[in-house]
């Protein structure tokens, strides 16, 4: 309320800093004046002392300087000589000499050690920070920042300053800016690396102060994140001021010629881009200008000039111009908005940018370093001779015979130059080695770089591809993960029948409990049983076909005998079945789940079976995540540590409780074991910015939003608390603890532009011809001058326009 400032004033103040100080603004109070001061209600910074030593002398000099600075903010700086006026409470005690106080009226806002307010910058920054205590938010974690953001959305923009060390000139600059702009923007100060990371800073080691502008006011939906613009220049008052000015005015409009236009940017030393607008296309032009303005915000000022004004004299052949600081206006013709952004970002602003991004760029733009983890890891193995002994390499001559010989022939189709294929082939060999000597299974491979005819005949268009061949049957596509475990499991499961035809209730019991075919128990504990009243049931064929399609992926049984089913189900406690039905067992001793089996096509049945096989409270692993993400539900994700502590077991049990009552049906409750899935740790770090003590419960919305919520660590992880928390989150009463960024995944490195290089090194080479010339247009020198045939003569130009000498460019 006591800040009535304008920008002009600030600038005046900035200049006054450099000018010679005429008289000191530092006041000295007597008891009398001190008492009066206490009654004015004004803010003052007061030092009480009784003698001067060299340290104090230095401090007094700084105090004197701060008096000038703080006067501009309506804060008086006062010294009291306690040896003359012993003011009660302040001139006594051990704190005398080492403390300074900030008063509002008679109330002490804060006291400072003079070690803290060691110089003018420290004094000004600390005093202003105290005065602005309610306006400038201090945040430690990304979550706190998000809270500020969500409060500011559609309301005001935010200025975030990262000040690693308090009391330095950068801190003062931020505080001074906050004082001036505090009513306009929400200021946020932070010092931790967590927020830095959250803002996308890669190099956390630097202790540089930073500033961002978060455009929260203009977000169209409250769920959208606030776009941010980093300030690229060092943090000082002038730069902050300039930067905020630029944030303000991405676009100005004018009716003057570019050289006449006076915009704030020119005074701020910022390049200006001028675009010309025609009356007919004004809306379009303005939209273009606005988009450009936003893209170049903070780095370039944008002016839209209306052509219809008589003052605009620029030739019509130009539609744009720019002006660099201290230079003249340069005109050019703009072809695309991207072109301009490129021009500025890549050329005109390059110098500035280089300083900032040198380190990052250097690493990635090194053109000959592989930046693909699969390619690089395979490339590092280039000296390794792959031992393909256990894999049969097929040729056009051997292919047909080989794939019909064994019960199962697994064939890998690969390219030698494809890194993914070559990474997978290592796993493939591991599987082949493990299966070596097993009857009825053979692993083979086709190098499609050589045997292209086989690969085309087999309709392989994706690499790597694994096909399973059985005699007298169409090849089956392996659709699982391209890894050792998955493929190995698939092959072993493929060896069994699908479905297993069961003929007695004893067999059914044994099948469901895992005794029968127990050798597959370690592959998957899940058993799915189709129950039909008789083998003539319409559904049986469909089920059998589905089982055939799922061969290798699931263990399926078929039991088609009404009477026996009745006998058997009556023996199992709590089991009632309406035929036809699907029965799912998840392992010995676990109660069966019953699903009705509608008559449907085999492929629909396949999806149904895949769905019922899914765990209701799965442990997420690298291999199974895609099956669960497909459900499209928000995740209720519990992270547990690698030690199987009782806490973890308890937490799992607490979530299971509401699960069985159906209260979590709109979620996918799941968990990650950081021991078995170490990458889970990185996920937590990305979510929260740090790894809290485990277990941790997190809700991530994924498809429906970007927010991540953290179950408050202080609350006990108990069913009712969890439900309450979910309720709170759903009602918007919880603040998100982190955000899932909507990464664009654009090209990871700058483009190597051959055309640009051609234009530079051979200017006419890549240029479209002028309209007049013809396609075949080569000069047709039909010289009439007679040339004597002679072997010494210079070659006669071809009389044939289609037989030019320079034809071999093609």
């Amino acid at each position: 309320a006591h800040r009535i400032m304008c920008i002009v004033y600030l600038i005046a103040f900035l200049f006054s800093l450099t000018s010679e100080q005429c008289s000191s603004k530092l006041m000295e109070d007597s008891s009398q004046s001190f008492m009066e001061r206490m009654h004015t209600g004004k803010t003052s910074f007061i030092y009480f002392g009784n003698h001067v030593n060299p340290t104090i002398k230095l401090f007094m000099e700084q105090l004197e300087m701060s008096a000038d600075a703080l006067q501009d903010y309506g804060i008086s700086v006062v010294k009291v000589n306690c040896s003359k006026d012993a003011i009660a409470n302040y001139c006594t005690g051990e704190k005398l000499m080492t403390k300074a106080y900030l008063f509002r009226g008679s109330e002490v806002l804060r006291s400072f050690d003079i070690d803290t307010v060691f110089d003018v910058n420290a004094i000004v920054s600390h005093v202003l920070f105290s005065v602005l205590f309610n306006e400038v938010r201090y945040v430690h974690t990304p979550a706190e920042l998000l809270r500020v953001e969500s409060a500011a959305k559609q309301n005001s923009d935010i200025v975030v300053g990262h000040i690693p060390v308090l009391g330095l000139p950068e801190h003062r600059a931020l505080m001074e800016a906050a004082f001036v702009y505090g009513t306009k923007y929400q200021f946020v100060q932070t010092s931790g690396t967590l927020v830095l990371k959250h803002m996308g800073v890669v190099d956390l080691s630097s202790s540089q102060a930073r500033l961002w502008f978060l455009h929260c006011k203009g977000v169209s939906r409250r769920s959208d994140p606030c776009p941010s613009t980093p300030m690229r220049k060092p943090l000082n008052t002038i730069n902050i001021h300039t930067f905020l000015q630029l944030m303000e005015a991405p676009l100005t409009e004018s009716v003057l010629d570019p050289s006449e236009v006076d915009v704030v940017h020119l005074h701020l030393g910022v390049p200006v881009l001028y675009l010309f607008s025609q009356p007919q296309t004004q809306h379009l032009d303005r939209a273009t200008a606005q988009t450009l303005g936003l893209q170049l915000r903070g780095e370039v000022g944008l002016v839209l000039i209306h052509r219809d004004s008589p003052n605009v004299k620029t030739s019509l052949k130009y539609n744009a111009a720019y002006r660099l600081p201290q230079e003249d206006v340069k005109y050019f013709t703009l072809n695309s908005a991207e072109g301009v952004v490129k021009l500025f970002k890549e050329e005109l602003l390059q110098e500035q940018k280089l300083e900032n991004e040198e380190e990052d760029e250097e690493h990635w733009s090194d053109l000959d370093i592989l930046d693909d983890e699969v390619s690089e890891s395979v490339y590092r193995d280039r000296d390794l001779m792959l031992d393909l002994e256990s894999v049969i390499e097929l040729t056009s001559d051997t292919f047909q015979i080989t794939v019909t010989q064994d019960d199962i022939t697994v064939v890998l189709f690969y390219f030698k130059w494809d890194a993914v294929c070559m990474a997978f082939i290592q796993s493939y060999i591991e599987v082949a080695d493990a299966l070596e000597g097993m009857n009825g299974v053979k692993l083979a491979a086709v190098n499609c770089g050589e045997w292209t005819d086989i690969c085309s005949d087999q309709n392989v268009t994706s690499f790597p591809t694994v096909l399973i061949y059985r005699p007298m049957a169409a090849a089956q596509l392996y659709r699982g993960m391209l890894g050792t475990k998955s493929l190995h499991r698939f092959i072993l499961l493929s060896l069994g029948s699908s479905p297993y035809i069961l003929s007695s209730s004893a067999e059914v019991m044994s099948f469901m409990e895992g005794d029968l075919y127990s050798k597959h128990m370690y592959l998957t504990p899940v058993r799915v049983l189709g129950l039909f009243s008789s083998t003539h049931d319409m559904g049986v064929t469909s089920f059998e076909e589905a089982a055939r399609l799922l061969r290798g992926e699931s263990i399926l049984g078929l039991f088609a005998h009404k009477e026996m089913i009745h006998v058997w189900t009556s023996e199992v406690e709590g089991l009632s079945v309406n035929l036809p039905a699907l029965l799912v067992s998840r392992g010995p001793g676990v109660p069966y789940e019953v699903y009705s089996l509608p008559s449907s096509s085999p492929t629909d049945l396949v999806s149904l079976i895949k769905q019922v096989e899914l765990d209701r409270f799965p442990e997420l692993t690298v291999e199974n995540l895609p099956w669960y993400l497909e459900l499209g539900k928000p995740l209720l994700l519990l992270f547990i540590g690698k030690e199987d502590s009782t806490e973890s077991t308890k937490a799992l049990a607490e979530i299971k409780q509401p699960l069985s009552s159906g209260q979590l049906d709109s979620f996918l409750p799941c968990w990650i074991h950081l021991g078995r899935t170490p990458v889970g740790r990185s996920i937590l770090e990305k979510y929260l910015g740090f790894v809290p003590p485990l277990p941790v419960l997190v809700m991530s919305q994924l498809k429906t939003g970007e927010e991540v919520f953290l179950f408050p660590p202080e609350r006990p992880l108990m069913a009712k608390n969890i439900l309450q928390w979910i309720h709170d989150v759903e009602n918007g009463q919880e603040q998100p603890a982190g955000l899932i960024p909507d990464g664009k995944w654009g090209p990871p490195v700058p483009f190597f532009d051959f055309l640009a290089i051609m234009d530079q090194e051979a200017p006419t080479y890549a240029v479209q011809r002028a309209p007049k010339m013809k396609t075949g247009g080569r000069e047709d020198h039909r010289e009439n001058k007679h040339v004597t045939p002679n072997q010494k003569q210079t070659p006669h130009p071809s009389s044939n326009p289609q037989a030019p000498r320079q034809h071999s460019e093609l």
Partner: protein
Amino acid sequence: MHVTICNHEYCVLGAGPAGLQMGYFLSRSQRDYIILERNAGPGSFFQIYPRHRKLISINKIYTGRRNKEFNLRHDWNSLLSDRPSLLFQRISRELYPNADDFPRYLSTFVKELGLKVKYGADIGTIKASDFNGNQGYILTDQNGVSYQCSVLLVSTGLWVPQQVDFLGSDLVEGYESIPTDPEEFKDQAVLILGKGNSAFETAQSILGRASRIHLYSPSPVRLAWQTHYVGDLRAINNELLDTYQLKSLDGLVEGRLEDIAIGKEQLYLTLTELLDQNGNNISKITGQNLPGFHTDNFSLRQPYDRVIRCLGFRFNFSIFDGSARPPQSSGARGRLPGITAWYEGRGTPNMFVLGTAAHSRDYRMSAGGFVHGFRYTVRAVHKILEQRYHNIAWPATKLPISQLQSWILRRVNEASGPYQMFGVLGDIILLRGSYCEYLEEFPLQALPQLSALSGRPLTDQGLLVLVMQYGLNRTDTLGPGRAESEWTKAWRSNFLHPVLYYYNTLPTEKDMRQRPVGWPLPRPEALHHMVEDFLTEWDQPISHSQPLRRFLEHCLQTDLRAFYAESCFLLSLTSRTPPLFCRQGYLRKQGIVGNSHLWQHAREAGLMADHQRDITPGDDTSVSEYLKHAGAAVVSTMNFDL
């Protein structure tokens, strides 16, 4: 005379290699077609030509490779078919085969594929006619039999000897009729008009008998190994260059053919300007009419015993009625019919020109005038026919974008069509967001008409074109610095190398017309040259794959890197849209898992995050454990009960 009329949807005129090649495609797509041939067997041109019976088309059987497509790059004689055994190497194993072998091969081709050829049908006239509103053609043979054809495919080749009219040109012998026995040239001075392969072939055969051989034509010799045009002088025929440069009485001279005259008694060469103004009477050529009288050291001052014309052949326009006659090509001295970019006669709708006669499209540039080139253009024309007359779109392979790079590498490393027909046929990739459609071997000059010709609709996602090209012209083909190995300088590659063009929108005809000088296509939005490779294997990770990937990333504006399943797991949970590779692989349950050995490499390279910091080795060492147990069918210790 009894009038017979036969109706066919397609009439193919001529049972040479191009006609038979088209016959094969028509027969495969089960079209109503007939191949009409005036002689008693296929490929009759090769019964006579080349006169000295040695084919100069390479028949390289041993390539060290078993890739059938790749091997066609070095097999210049075979026609395309789905019979792997129907290759020319079955007939001859010579690198430069005997010409008799070629008609034999063609006969085998006709017989084994059961192609419908009518021999002995000598078509004398071709007339355009209206069939239900569409222009068709009526062909009449020597017996008055008429063939009504909805579509006419002219593959008559070039066989009319090219002649030049000058005083005394009647004294000149033609390549088509000269004796091939060198003894007949014993101690004779021979002037050969022309400097192409037939001229040199003739010269080479008489080199050991003739006293002096001079080759005369307007342009200097163009060496195929310098120009990359197989129609220029091939090294196999160039022995005379040796004897010329080593001063063994042979030589080359440049001058216009129209300017010369040849005297009757002794075959003196003179110049028209030295004849009398009204001196049409050649018998009157005297010493004063000869150049040697005026310039004492005139090169061709000595008389010749023989003058031989080796000037090549021209298209036979004479059988076409005015209503059906295609115009003469603007290039190639008008010897060829003028045709559109999709090989349809200009002004003669539904008549297409195939084979050597269609060479005006790439005359002196590419291989469209030769079997190893036009077998692919014929295939392309057939695809256009299928679309235009049967509404069957150009075959396209639908690929997820994550597979595009390996597909391009596959084509670059094996495809024969774009390799032989460099700069003329190229692969088109229609971008469709998360997937693309891959069209092979489309005639590039017809790109503006892509949609209509291929039946593949265009979207606003843009397209890529893959072309094989020779680079900037160089004069010193064998000099130092001729090879480029730095991929960043790939555009300076002199040897054949793949080039990719990216267009936001389809180029227009105007763009096409105004394309940069020497370019097969207009300036694109983005361009990528894959650096030439000594072994023509474009498959190296740093020099070929990664630059290609980055180019595609730029065009598609997306990250195309591959990620291990673990990285995709992390990215799927921590970003709303994980990278394309994860979306099209991992999230479709086809992630690439890798093993600890590979992850170790990736981590050491700093490309994969190391989460294992404080984790005891668990997961991966257990794989080998796991596999051990697996084989032994031991019940697992793995944790399933939770």
